[in-house]
């Protein structure tokens, strides 16, 4: 009898663990795919309804920087960078990731043009996301530019499409 109870308890425990594992996977599958994110963005922007202050405050944005250059070392750090907006200076803490691309200088598949300033292997990419308009916890408004001001300005402009 005791043995039977033991086996039953073990089976039940495994079953509960399996169930938890399943629900975790389901949660992952519910993440928005990239194309759904684009669709949701358009849907949410056309509906809009948020106040102008939601868009105009730089503190409502999170930005990061990806650098691809042949003359830098690989690194990952946080930095504070400032922008001038409406005669005020705003400083944002941004995550910076730098990628050394020099190992591709000799690669036959890579054309020299990739190393010209602004080319794929010699450029800076700032991304700013508006952190108040989210879908399943993910920002819908993300814009890219080669400057922090540019990325922020683009994101503010996109956000403003939904101002009531």
């Amino acid at each position, binding site marked *: 009898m005791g043995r039977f109870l033991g086996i039953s308890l073990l089976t039940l425990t495994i079953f509960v663990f399996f169930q938890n594992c399943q629900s975790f996977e389901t949660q992952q599958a519910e993440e928005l795919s990239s194309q759904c994110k684009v669709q949701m963005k358009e849907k949410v922007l056309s509906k809009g309804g948020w106040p102008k202050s939601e868009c105009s405050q730089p503190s409502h944005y999170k930005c*990061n920087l990806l650098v691809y250059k042949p003359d830098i070392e690989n690194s990952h750090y946080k930095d504070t960078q400032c922008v001038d907006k409406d005669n005020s200076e705003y400083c944002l803490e941004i995550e910076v990731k730098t990628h050394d691309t020099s190992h591709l200088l000799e690669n036959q598949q890579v*054309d020299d043009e990739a190393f010209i300033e602004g080319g794929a292997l010699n450029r800076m990419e700032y991304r700013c996301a508006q952190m108040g308009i989210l879908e399943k916890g993910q920002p819908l408004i993300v814009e890219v530019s080669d400057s922090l001001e540019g990325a922020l300005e683009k994101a503010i402009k996109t956000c403003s499409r939904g101002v009531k």
Partner: protein
Amino acid sequence: MSKLIVILCSLLLSEGLFANVLWSSKGSTPPRHRNITTESDAPCGSGEKATPVQLYSGTNTELEWEEFIPQNGYFEIYFSPANDENWILLKKINNNVMGESTDLKVHKVNIKLPDVSCDNCTIQIIQTVTGTVDAKYYSCADISLKGAPNNNTVKTESCAN
């Protein structure tokens, strides 16, 4: 003079790498163009459509793409039956990179193509690089699919919240 002509010709004919993620020219789905395509010019960037490569509906096909700086995140492969719209997710592949960035990486995956016929369809790859703000890079390939009954349709992804 002849050297200049050679350089100009090689620039015109070159298939150099210009984007973070690109369908491979040597694979079954050559890229529409080789420019960097990010969120700002998604889904396929600027540039004319290319002559579609003919593939067969419902068959398992090897797709090949290049990643010039391997970074953590994932790839998504989409299919559009026409006009770069109504994208259908075919596969999501995690991209776990160990340690520092390494040399250009070639990825290959077998995919069952949708069981539809279309003349101007698109296969797209999106690379998501995870970070405080995710970065996305895109590459599109123009294809045609043959072999399926004309009335077959594909089920589009439901994005309902």
